[in-house]
């Protein structure tokens, strides 16, 4: 039964398509881990730069992949080199060297690299730009974390705090530099991290009102958050939504960690941000991958609120298999959620508006697989598409401060079942009277069961009844009847569902032209398919012998059928462009002869000049006059030289770069030409040429 297999395949594809379109967010899984190994594969055992190395190592560490031993030797060499001579490297290099050191532990212990600390401390002191503050302050925080024998503190922490705060804008965004009025959300994330570092390095507590204004700034920043229809939230800017959002989340995490009074952020936004990163899927770009994983790690472990994600292993419920509906609740990395209960508050059918099939049903919990499940569905639960609305309730109210869940999670679910096909009949009717000429019951499980014959004055009627397991009329998404002539000409007709019946009547009198007057044997094929139909079918019912009138002269001929049905997907023949044929050039010698002839009048001109006794005796001899005269002639000569160069395309050539030296651009040429303005050259001429001219 190849047809049956195909039908099953169609259903599978449809089911997958529905799952793909649904906005169900799955936590980070093993597919991310295997992708990470590809994305962050080092070239020749090391990474191009320290920041790339940090991003790779950090991502692999968060995902729990241990590759440190393979990478540490080459990367550590770079780290030690930078840390040994901080004077020859930038603040950024030092910062990333320390970051990598934090993961690989290339250098640790009590001996604090003094020159690094002093470089970072002068960095903080001299900093004007946000990035300088960021690298130096975060660098000091890293030194403090990694080298135990230190007690680094910023003496003038409050002044540093104020000077960073001075870069903030009223809308919660930050500027990169005091001279640049452009503000950015990405910079805001960097600023929060920097300020968190300043707070943790401060010897005494920072003025509380300063921190309070910063918190108001964070609230304002959340006003500029953007939203997708499926409830995901993100920040967008020129750096791209992933980088920008990740930067803000990193900043918020560090800030919340350094500060004791707690950060009160809108819960739905936090869940929306988590859903945004989960919805990204697996990025192919290393930077995006790092930002996604790092931001999710910040959301997994933070001091404001940890989002819990509701996910479904499958969004298709089969009514025939009586499988339970399974729901999982976990953090973004799939680790266990605290004790909670999941309630299916509504199951909205997409067909009938507003009516809910299931109301307020609590899901049972299976501790072993950490899954919540709904075992039985109510009797009136039929096949079709539904939107399930879940609610999560935390058992312990103490957890409500730590964890945050979505108020309602809407999940599209499709319920599938076996559709019963009854009263399938195919009949040939007499057109004028409507009396039945021949009628056959159809058994759709068998192929080639029917053989009919009809002429152009008769009709073909196909009728069947489709019912759902609950006995309702089922309207399939696809129901086609295909007639295929011996000459491979195909015609497809739609089977319409009206009332209880699905019916198709073909009046051959009106169809003769469409059938190209082709008499003979037609194969009949019936297709019924739907995403919720488990027994979708593609069945060869049989054949019909049609007796149609002769083809008139003017009628259209049937189109030629390609021998290979897949050839219509083959690429079209390449279009060859016709260019103008270049015209014939004369022989080169001929052209050269005429070039010589062209020079003859010029020689004649020179001879004529000598005959006339022209001389340049009165060329100015005093230094000043001679210089300006030379300048004038030189100027004219230069302009002419410029023309020649332009002509041979040595300069001003924009499109021809092969073999010519690009010595300038059109704009340069234009400017040079503009300097020869009429007035200046005339004045020059009057001064320079007085003597020469009068002598002639």
């Amino acid at each position: 039964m190849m047809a049956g297999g195909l039908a099953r395949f169609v259903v599978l594809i449809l089911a997958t398509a529905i799952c793909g379109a649904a906005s169900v967010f799955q936590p980070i899984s093993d597919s991310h881990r295997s992708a990470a190994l590809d994305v962050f594969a080092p070239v020749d055992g090391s990474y191009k730069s320290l920041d790339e190395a940090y991003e790779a190592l950090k991502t692999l560490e968060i995902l729990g992949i241990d590759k440190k031993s393979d990478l540490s030797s080459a990367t550590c060499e770079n780290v030690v080199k930078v840390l040994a001579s901080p004077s020859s490297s930038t603040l950024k290099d030092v910062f990333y060297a320390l970051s990598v050191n934090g993961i690989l532990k290339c250098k640790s212990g009590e001996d604090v690299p003094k020159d690094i600390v002093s470089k970072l401390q002068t960095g903080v002191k001299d900093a004007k730009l946000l990035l300088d503050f960021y690298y130096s302050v975060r660098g000091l925080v890293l030194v403090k974390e990694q080298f135990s024998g230190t007690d680094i503190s910023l003496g003038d922490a409050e002044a540093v705090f104020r000077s960073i705060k001075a870069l903030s804008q009223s809308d919660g965004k930050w500027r990169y530099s005091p001279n640049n009025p452009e503000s950015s959300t990405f910079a805001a994330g960097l600023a929060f991290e920097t300020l968190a570092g300043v707070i943790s390095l401060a010897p005494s507590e920072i003025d509380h009102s300063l921190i309070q204004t910063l918190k108001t700034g964070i609230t304002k920043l959340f006003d500029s958050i953007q939203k997708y229809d499926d409830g995901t939230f993100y920040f967008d800017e020129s750096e791209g939504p992933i980088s920008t959002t990740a930067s803000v989340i990193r900043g918020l995490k560090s800030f919340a960690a350094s500060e004791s009074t707690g950060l009160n952020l809108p819960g739905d936004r936090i869940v929306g941000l988590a859903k945004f990163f989960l919805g990204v899927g697996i990025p192919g770009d290393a930077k995006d991958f790092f930002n996604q994983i790092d931001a999710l790690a910040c959301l997994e472990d933070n001091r404001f609120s940890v989002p819990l994600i509701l996910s479904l292993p499958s969004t298709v419920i089969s009514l025939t298999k009586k499988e339970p509906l399974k729901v999982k609740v976990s953090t973004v990395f799939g680790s266990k959620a605290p004790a909670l209960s999941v309630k299916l508050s509504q199951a909205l059918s997409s067909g009938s508006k507003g009516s809910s099939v299931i109301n307020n049903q609590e899901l049972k919990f299976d501790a072993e697989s950490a899954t919540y499940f709904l075992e039985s569905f109510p009797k009136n639960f039929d096949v079709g598409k539904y939107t399930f609305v879940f609610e999560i309730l935390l058992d312990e109210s103490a957890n409500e401060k730590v964890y945050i869940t979505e108020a309602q999670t809407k999940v599209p679910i499709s319920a599938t079942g076996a559709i019963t096909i009854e009263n399938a009949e195919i009949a040939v009717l007499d057109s004028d009277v409507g009396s039945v000429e021949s009628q056959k019951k159809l058994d759709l499980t068998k192929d080639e069961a029917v053989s009919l014959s009809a002429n152009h004055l008769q009709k073909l009627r196909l009728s069947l009844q489709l019912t759902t397991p609950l006995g309702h009329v089922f309207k399939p998404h696809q129901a086609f009847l295909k007639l295929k002539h011996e000459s491979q000409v195909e015609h497809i007709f739609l089977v319409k569902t009206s009332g209880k019946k699905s019916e198709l009547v073909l009046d051959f009198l009106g169809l003769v032209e469409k059938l190209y007057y082709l008499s003979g044997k037609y194969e009949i094929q019936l297709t019924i398919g739907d995403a919720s139909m488990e027994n979708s079918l593609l069945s060869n019912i049989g054949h019909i012998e049609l007796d149609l009138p002769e083809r008139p002269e003017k009628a259209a001929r049937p189109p030629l059928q390609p021998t290979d049905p897949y050839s219509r997907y083959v690429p079209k023949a390449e279009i060859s462009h016709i260019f103008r044929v270049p015209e014939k050039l004369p022989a080169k010698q001929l052209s050269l002869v005429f070039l010589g002839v062209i020079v003859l009048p010029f020689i004649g001109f020179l001879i004529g000049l000598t005959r006339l006794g022209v001389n340049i005796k009165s060329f100015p001899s005093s230094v000043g006059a001679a210089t300006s005269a030379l300048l004038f002639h030189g100027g004219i000569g230069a302009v002419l030289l410029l023309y020649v160069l332009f002509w041979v395309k040595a300069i001003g050539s924009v499109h021809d770069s092969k073999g010519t030296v690009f010595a300038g651009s059109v704009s340069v040429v234009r400017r040079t030409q503009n300097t020869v303005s009429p007035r200046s050259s005339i004045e020059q001429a009057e001064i320079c040429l007085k003597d020469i001219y009068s002598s002639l």
Partner: protein
Amino acid sequence: MVKSTSKDAQDLFRSLHSAYSATPTNLKIIDLYVVFSVFTALIQVAYMALVGSFPFNSFLSGVLSCIGTAVLAVCLRIQVNKENKEFKDLAPERAFADFVLCNLVLHLVIINFLG
């Protein structure tokens, strides 16, 4: 009616020549220049007639360059001619500068049109 003979023609040319030799040298130079450029143009026209006019814009720009500079030279001659009272206020240096400038502009166009 006096019959015209070759002697008359010779006389005519002779008187023309003697009259012309009285013209100042600078005007003669300009005349020579005009003759030079007109001949150059004629050679190009002959080339076109004999060989063909395929890069037509090159031919046009070559001929127009010669004709144009000849016309400009004639203008210069009108302006620097001392017997022409119309331009007696105009300094010959100014006229020459005009000539140079117009030539530069003309040839800028020519170079761009040359292709």
